[in-house]
């Protein structure tokens, strides 16, 4: 067999023929970035290649890096390796990286989901020989409900809180999840406030052409004191849960929007009232569908329940293994999808 097109090094996933890294966790010369989450896009590299729709987000996150934007499907050649980016459906600008060299095709998935999301381009399967897939929710207990049903639940929770004079505080990762919540809720129920971290990214989404309902940053002067929050929806990053900042919305009902909320223990541990099962990662059926559609003969699982997914695939006749990356430690579970910024 030919030398692998992608291997793991100290700095991360590396393409030796093309001499570039994918989502490196150390500063390197040339980096291809799948998406703007902090564990995938790190500052300090010489040059960056990323999908054009995520350009504004990377500017905000990395401070205007030396970035070449690439349209989805457009190809560039690096040392004889054809590189193209394809929608991953994870967050705005998220991409799968397709590498082709002498007829051998590899795809690095980055993070992805198959559900509809109005804030980003939907996932597109890419045929390949070797597929490096995330496996954050690689257990069959993780199955997502239809987004419409989920948002109906969120709306009825918000409405009931409003009618009871409570604020509705929803904790959601500030890049991606927060905007998906914004795009999904019924903004006619009440005003929407955001934590500063959420507002910054939401602004970048708007500047990227994504339409979202109006929001007001909590930090900005709000008239009416305590009363201003009653009936409102407040969107904040999970790190704000339990902070003095979050206390000021009392009386309030707290909720978390995350795939981890599928399991009751994860919500009860946070002592939140509600857990909305809303993830930007593929669920178990989603992972299996995506893998099948690549027609890959070899699958490398990483980032999540990698060993479980690999064993399942092997048992079902696909050559599969685990590739250890630092996008999450082996069998990472409850770590935030987005480390603090």
């Amino acid at each position: 067999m030919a030398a692998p097109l992608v291997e793991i090094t100290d700095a991360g996933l590396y393409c030796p023929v093309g001499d570039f890294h994918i989502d490196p966790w150390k500063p390197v010369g040339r980096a291809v970035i799948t998406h703007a989450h902090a564990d995938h896009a790190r500052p300090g590299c010489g040059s960056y290649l990323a999908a054009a729709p995520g350009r504004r987000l990377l500017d905000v996150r990395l401070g205007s890096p030396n970035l070449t934007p690439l349209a989805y499907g457009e190809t560039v050649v690096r040392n004889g390796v054809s590189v193209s980016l394809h929608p991953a459906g994870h967050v705005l600008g998220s991409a799968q990286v397709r590498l082709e060299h002498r007829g051998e095709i590899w795809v690095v998935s980055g993070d992805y989901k198959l559900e509809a999301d109005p804030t980003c381009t939907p996932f597109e399967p890419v045929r390949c020989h070797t597929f490096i897939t995330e496996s954050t929710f690689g257990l069959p207990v993780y199955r997502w409900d239809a987004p419409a049903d989920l948002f109906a639940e969120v709306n009825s929770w918000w409405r009931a809180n409003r009618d009871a004079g409570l604020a509705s505080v929803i904790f959601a990762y500030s890049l991606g999840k927060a905007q998906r919540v914004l795009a999904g809720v019924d903004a006619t129920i009440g005003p929407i406030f955001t934590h500063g971290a959420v507002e910054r990214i939401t602004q970048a989404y708007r500047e990227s052409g994504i339409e979202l309902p109006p929001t007001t940053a909590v930090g900005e002067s709000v008239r009416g004191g305590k009363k201003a929050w009653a009936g409102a929806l407040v969107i904040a990053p999970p790190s704000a849960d339990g902070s003095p900042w979050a206390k000021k919305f009392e009386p309030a009902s707290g909720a978390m929007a995350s795939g981890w909320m599928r399991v009751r223990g994860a919500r009860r541990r946070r002592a939140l009232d509600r857990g909305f099962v809303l993830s930007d990662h593929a669920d178990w059926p989603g992972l299996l569908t995506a893998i099948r559609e690549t027609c890959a003969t070899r699958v490398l699982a990483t980032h999540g329940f990698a060993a479980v997914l690999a064993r399942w695939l092997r048992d079902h006749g696909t050559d599969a293994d685990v590739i250890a990356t630092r996008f999450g430690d082996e069998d990472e579970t409850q770590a935030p999808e987005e480390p603090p910024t």
Partner: protein
Amino acid sequence: MKAFAQLYAELDQTTRTGRKVEAMARYFAAVPPADAAWAVYFLSGRKPRQAVPAKRLKAWAWEQAGIPEWLFGECYHAVGDVAETLALLLPDGGTASDRTLAEWVHDRLLPLRELSEAEQKASVLAAWAELDRPQRFVWNKLITGAFRVGVSQLLVTRAIAKVSGLDGDVVAHRLMGHWEPTPAFYAGVTAADAADAALSRPYPFFLAHPLEGDPAALGPPAEWQAEWKWDGIRSQVVRRGGQSFIWSRGEELVTDRYPELKAMADRLPDGTVLDGEILPWKDGAVQPFADLQKRIGRKTVGKKLLADVPVVVMAYDLVEGGGVDLRDRPLSERREMLEVLAADHPALVLSPRIAFDTWESLARQRAASRERRVEGMMLKRRASPYRVGRVRGDWWKWKVEPYAVDAVLIYAQQGHGKRSGLFTDYTFGVWDGDQLVPFAKAYSGLTDVEIGEVDAFVRRNTREKFGPVRTVKPELVFELGFEGIQASSRHKSGVAVRFPRMLRWRTDKKPEDADTLEQVKALLAQGVG
């Protein structure tokens, strides 16, 4: 079932006890008494004997979900709850059932026990097919028990008090002891007439709070009664209508397990209820708790065991005397009556009062707790009534500092319930030469933030997996506290400790700084053992 599943969801969706009580009260008011009775039964932590072994339920579920056993195991470790894992894995389908909770229990749950395995399977699969996901989860909970929805008997009591307009204490009293969840029972619990205390019924236990600060803050010593804090099983002895009943704090009737206590109780006057501690007792002295463990759980006791580990009730309160509920009388008065009673009943061992004039003198006496095989002292306000549950202010437990040993984290396992998916159950080792031998397991004592850090460490530093257990790189050192230590041939380390827990994470210590087995064994010689 729809209403009950809805109630379960409401209880599960809030962390506020006030809202939980309201949700239950609404439910009790809305459903027929037959449903209310079963809801009280399940929510207060009771369950019928498990009709279908979890093993079978699991096997049927993985068959239905089309997954192999190992994958079910992985899921279970991540979820930490059998009923929930089953509900999450079963394929979608089914709709909400309109039949009532009582119908489901009587027609479907209780008959399961009598069925053959094949019939059980058909019945359970039919139920799964019939129910939607939230109801399925609740159905699984009915079979497996352990509701884990943040509701205690106390909250159920409050909810019933709310709907019935009764005093909470009356409801608590009516819910104690043995009862069948029938409509008549529920009617009895909510009935206005309060003169109904069934013969066997004990009183809700009054529980003490730990005293953290200086006892001087409690006020003048003369207002307080001090006793030793005995290390046994909290118990009430009930003598009414010519019958005797021994209750443990877990509200279990244990009369048959302690014939010598029954013999003592049989001689008490009718209308007597004692509160005290069951202790292993020989030659006028308390024996190690480990001896008592030989009696706990034994439903029938042989002559040899009776002779080897005789027990007494160390009485410290008189809750009912002459058929009168004495709980509103001051402790000083109850104590006087108890002493009069004990004078006529030599088999009744009285918890001695500790004489003291100043808090300093009491503190000096407390230092000798270990030699006496007690855990410290109890401080009780002489004017205090016998309250219900853990009410602050009148009864304090003033325990001695625990033993402490620095040990190294060597194995970790994921927790259950609220801690599912997190590595929270740890095994610690101490040095025996250049080997770390497992010495104690501990689950409590860390903050959520610390648990998060240890969890991340375990994931990064796993060396081997044995089923759910991870062997981790021996690196983290914790100070473990425990209440007692005993030689044990059943433990690899040769010692068994009581109530081990993490006192603090010694981030300042390296694994080589941890204690040795030799140092641990030296504690054996300190008198308690």
